[in-house]
């Protein structure tokens, strides 16, 4: 697949504080890309640099093979959907959508019939039929989201940037819009770059997920690989599904604050040595239960558990005070009850652990 957007060593600092510290990325044509990063990782800055609202300090941005750093936003042909939608408050739904077609500096559409036709098509595509003449104050959050998207899509951009597009919606609507955004994108055939701070959203939406950490792309891969093989302990931490121990490899074990953990799983090279085990790969057993040869065992005290329907998350404190989380799926077993402050053995297979060296 050809790439629509390429970033080469892009740097940007605000008052000496680096926000982007050498971004290298390549976004494929006709895909849904999600950009995951904790707050302050530079997500919004990266998006604004791509859109042209901010100028990079150094580096190159290539869009369809053409260098666009230095080109003003209105000549880039990149759509931007704002977190707060940024609809024009004095214009109706249809007028908001038609704005780009009639007012753009490059190749504006002057024929009112053509404008009306294209606005009607896009209103049908995003599911806003019947609301054309409403004021933007008279529609719901989900409808505003659709207007914001339609307003951008009608100009036929080669790429759409979405800045936390679901952040302003309630949970129920957010789930529904996830599916709709993907469907709308498939129908238009353009690349969406969706910025989010939610790992579930990033994994659910993206054909490709980019993880941004401290102004750098920490990993760029598909959702499955990202979830099961995060490239570093930091990436694993954002995914919010790994227990992570610092320490170092010594011999055939990983020396961690809670003792030596036998090696056996995948070893990956990253700057920061760490040992990571997924919440749902851990079994909770009584302390006197037997341990197999290929298993790793630590002991901990039970604190509390949190029931979330399909799974239950149990929290333990290790001997060094660290919190350890275990996720047990309830599809095959009824939830077990654990005694508060009771000692339990936490056991996992050696090969399930990720070791970063």
């Amino acid at each position, binding site marked *: 697949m050809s790439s629509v957007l390429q970033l080469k060593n892009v740097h940007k600092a605000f008052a000496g504080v680096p926000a982007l510290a050498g971004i290298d990325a390549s976004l494929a044509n006709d895909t849904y890309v999600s950009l995951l990063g904790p707050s302050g990782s530079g997500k919004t800055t990266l998006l604004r640099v791509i*859109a*042209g*609202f901010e100028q990079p300090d150094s580096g190159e941005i290539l869009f369809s093979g053409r260098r666009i750093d230095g080109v*003003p*936003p*209105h*000549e880039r042909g*990149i*759509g*931007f959907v*704002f977190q*707060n939608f*940024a*609809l*024009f*408050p*004095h214009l109706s739904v249809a007028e908001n959508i038609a*704005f*780009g077609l009639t*007012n*753009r*500096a*490059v190749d*504006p559409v002057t024929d009112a019939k053509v404008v009306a036709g294209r606005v009607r098509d896009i209103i049908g595509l995003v599911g806003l039929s019947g609301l054309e003449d409403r004021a933007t104050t008279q529609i719901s959050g989900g409808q505003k989201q659709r207007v914001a998207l339609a*307003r*951008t899509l009608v*100009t036929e951009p080669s790429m759409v940037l979405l800045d936390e597009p679901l952040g302003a919606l309630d949970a129920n609507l957010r789930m529904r819009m996830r599916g709709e955004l993907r469907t709308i994108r498939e129908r238009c055939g353009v690349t969406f770059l969706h910025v989010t701070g939610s790992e579930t959203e990033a994994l659910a939406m993206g054909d490709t997920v980019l993880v941004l950490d401290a102004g750098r792309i920490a990993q760029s891969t598909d959702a499955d690989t990202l979830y099961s093989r995060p490239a570093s302990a930091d990436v694993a931490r954002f995914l919010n599904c790994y227990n992570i121990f610092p320490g170092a490899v010594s011999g055939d074990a990983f020396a961690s604050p809670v003792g030596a953990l036998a090696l056996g799983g995948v070893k990956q090279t990253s700057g920061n040595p760490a040992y990571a085990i997924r919440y749902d790969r851990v079994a909770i057993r009584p302390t006197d239960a037997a341990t197999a040869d290929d298993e790793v065992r630590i002991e901990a005290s039970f604190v509390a558990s949190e029931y979330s329907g399909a799974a239950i998350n149990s929290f333990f404190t290790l001997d060094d005070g660290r919190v350890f989380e275990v996720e047990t799926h309830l599809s095959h077993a009824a939830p077990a009850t654990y005694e508060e402050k009771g000692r339990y053995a936490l056991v996992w297979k050696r090969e399930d652990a990720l070791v970063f060296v």
Partner: protein
Amino acid sequence: MTMAATSHDTPVETAERPTRKQPDRTFWLLAPGALWMLLFLVAPILMMVYVSFWTQTTFKIEPTLTLKSWITFFTSDTYLGALWTTVRIWLIVLVSTLLVGYPAALFVGLFVKNKTLSTALLVLCVIPFWTSFLIRVLAWRPMLGKEGAINMILMKIGVITQPIEVLLFSELSVIIGMTQIYCVFMVGPIAFMLGRIDPSVIEAAQDLGAGFWRIFRTIILPLSMPGVVVGAIFVSVMVLGEFATSAALSGRKVNLLGNIIVTQVGSLKWAFAAVAGVVLTILMGAVVAALLRVVDLRKEL
């Protein structure tokens, strides 16, 4: 405006919360304002209308009703001339305060991103008001006069050889003085409305491909219209009632309705003064009503 809004909102409030105390409180909250308006606004206006029909002789005025003062007003070139001058100066000052004020407001309200700085700049606009009105007006004399600062500078740098006499004691000087004094009333409301525009709305328009002038015409200008209308109402009401600036800067060459009233009251011609007053009041009412038609302020603010 305040009165209209209050009386409009009250029934809704009562309907939602039908407590026994509500109408009572509404009455007491409204009473002082209503009483004040009745005694010092409505009653004097009615009195003014009444007096305009009294019989005026050279030395005294009698409450015998007659149309004489009205006929004199509308057949005299002096009075009709003053009415026309008032309207002309008002329009010119309105346009010039808008032309000078809008760009300033655009800078303060939109281009200055720092809130503290934009507040500081607005305070700078108000600094001339720390001196008295009369001083502000009279300060234009050494500026515009035949041997004033502007003529001196222009002659020194050789742009002109003879001083420009039209600068002072002319309609031009009245317009310059009024524009300077009333401009800030235009800048304030417009800067306020511009400051309320969400910056991402302008970025969205940029992203959709619109250049600066397009965005100005289609987004910024319409969103700032309520500010323009409020500013225009301030400026209009004050300029239409003006007499001091024209008295101080025109050398009695420019007679506004306000100046007519002052002269007539000075010579105890109460009936003529009342006619001019009624005409001025109707004019102001019409101007404000027309301006309110431009934008539905209650919806926009």
